[in-house]
């Protein structure tokens, strides 16, 4: 009589099977590994690239730069491409973690708008090719704010008690020391790069005065809470507000979600493709970057997730309502009021974290 397989042996067999090579597909040896933000490239774009290069694109995802840096710092290898924000690009360059670009393999580089190349984090674009950007701004429930006669284009909305009194418990701000302090510093008229403890203290007092009116610190749940009407005002990223607006419209809610860049200015996050030094396929990585620089491929990120686009060739292919949205594509005048975050040194990071803890506890 045949004995049934003992459970332990069965488990080992299953684990073993999982490591066996999968049945072959086209271009199976040619795999490009992309370590990317969640929901940052549409499946259609991926399919088009795979067809054009006869290779496969394999993606891993992260939800913030620190997570990606921490994983690389811990020794992760095998990623060809990353999509870090400016300050993380700068860190990666200084860590010698990136491979210089072979510009002759990127003929479409000229598609990029002049204002998004040659940036402070990578002068001359030796390592990075801009892909998309978001702005940290204020998203709001159009009807609720209109009923209360509240302004929508100023940071005062989340910091001034005279406005917050009408919004108590309906406001969320980002659960990020950097982003919230940046908003407070901008509202107070300081630079986001300023590390003067006296100015930080001023910003802390502004935040503590407003905090009793806020519902929560939230980095992602505000999308849903805005879309279903739990929150009326949220400090967050433009592409998240884009999604909240679409979700509210799709669900047929009796209100609309809007988002505006505050007139005092805001934080801009420009994400770029970079090639990791330890990646095994720099050839495919260059092909991918050049593919993504083509207008029809670059346009997808704006059409699908509402990110801003540094690619001039993409502009005619972006849905007119998105291309005309000043919170996604700010005018040149507004763009001047946007600032990119830079990494602080260890001492300032520790001081900021101490202030942040105090903000949470008080």
């Amino acid at each position, binding site marked *: 009589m045949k004995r049934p397989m003992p459970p332990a042996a069965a488990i080992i067999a299953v684990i073993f099977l999982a490591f066996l090579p999968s049945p072959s597909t086209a271009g199976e040896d040619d795999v490009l590994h992309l370590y990317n933000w969640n929901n940052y490239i549409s499946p259609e774009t991926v399919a088009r690239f795979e067809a054009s290069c006869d290779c496969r694109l394999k993606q891993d995802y992260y939800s913030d730069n*620190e997570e990606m840096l*921490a994983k690389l*710092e811990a020794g992760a290898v095998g990623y060809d491409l990353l999509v870090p924000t400016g300050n993380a690009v700068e860190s990666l360059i200084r860590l010698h973690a990136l491979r210089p670009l072979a510009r002759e393999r990127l003929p479409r580089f000229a598609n990029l708008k002049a204002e998004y190349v040659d940036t402070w984090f990578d002068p001359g674009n030796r390592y990075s090719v801009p892909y998309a950007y978001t702005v940290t701004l204020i998203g709001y429930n159009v009807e609720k704010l209109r009923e209360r006669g509240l302004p929508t284009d100023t940071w005062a909305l989340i910091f001034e008690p005279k406005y917050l009194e009408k919004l108590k418990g309906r406001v969320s701000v980002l659960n990020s*020391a950097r982003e919230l302090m940046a908003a407070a510093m901008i509202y107070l008229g300081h630079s986001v790069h300023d590390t003067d403890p006296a100015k930080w203290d001023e910003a802390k007092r502004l935040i503590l005065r407003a905090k009793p009116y806020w519902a929560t610190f939230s980095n992602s749940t505000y999308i849903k809470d805005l879309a279903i009407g739990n929150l009326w005002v949220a400090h967050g990223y433009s592409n998240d507000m884009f999604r909240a607006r679409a979700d509210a419209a799709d669900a047929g809610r009796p209100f609309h979600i809007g988002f505006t860049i505050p007139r005092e200015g805001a934080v801009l996050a420009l994400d770029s493709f970079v090639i990791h030094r330890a990646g095994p396929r720099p050839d495919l990585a260059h092909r991918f970057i050049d593919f993504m620089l083509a207008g029809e491929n670059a346009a997808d990120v704006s059409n699908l997730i509402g990110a801003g686009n540094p690619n001039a060739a993409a502009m005619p292919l972006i849905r007119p309502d998105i291309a005309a949205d000043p919170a996604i594509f700010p005018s040149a005048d507004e763009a001047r009021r946007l600032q990119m975050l830079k990494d602080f040194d260890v001492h300032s990071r520790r001081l900021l*974290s101490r202030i942040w*803890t105090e903000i949470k506890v008080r």
Partner: protein
Amino acid sequence: MTRPRRDPTRWLVSLPPTLFLLAFFLAPALLMVLASFRHPGEFGGLAPLLVDGKPQLTLETYRFFFGDWIYAEVFLRSFIVAALTTLFCLLLAYPLALTIARSSARRRDLLVLLVILPFASNFLIRVYAWIILLGPPHLLYTTFAVIAGMVYVHLPFMILPLYTNLEKHDPTLLEAAQDLGADAWTRFWRITFPLSLPGIWAGTALVFIPVLGMFAIPELLGGTGDILIGNLIKEQFLDNRDWPLGSTLSLLLTVAVLALAGLSVWAGRARRGGI
């Protein structure tokens, strides 16, 4: 008296788990102690330990921690939340465990299965369900929501050890007490409860300690003031990239928990000695 027999197979059997604990528990714990005395690296991680052959160690991080009351306040707050969670878990779990333990054998298995069933889905998904539940009654983003979520997630860890303990009680003890005229309350208070103390302690440890390190629930359900020590530690390693401060916080938390455990063992011994 015979000395316990030296059995080589006993050593062989206990070798793999011992090695596992040495390699993946003790070694990282010691690395953490070392990290708490090192300088933070510019991009995160740690600065080099040796510069020109001289070790670069500092007490700066400890000085920073003890420099004011902010961090101690977070510790205190976390211990209060953990104590409340443990108390509510105990109050909810005890009657349930007792009911299960006194059911018929077949129903008992079914009930235990029901207690374990929530583990079939990831706890984060279940916490998201709480967001939906607590939203309409305006209880979301409050300390109440944090404690409700904590109690919900950790309840099985209180029920199971209690049940295992209560199930083993000898029913003839209760019958004897009844014959001697003890009412239901006296039977519970004088027999069942004292016998179940080991189960209570086991459940308390299984709930109290993980709650202290929990960061996901306060982040998802908590309001603007609900920061716990777990959040603080996570922030140091991920957002703030300050490993020495993160290590110091973890280490002090471990010391505080061990001190508390030691205290409860000592208190238990003193009580038993007194009887």
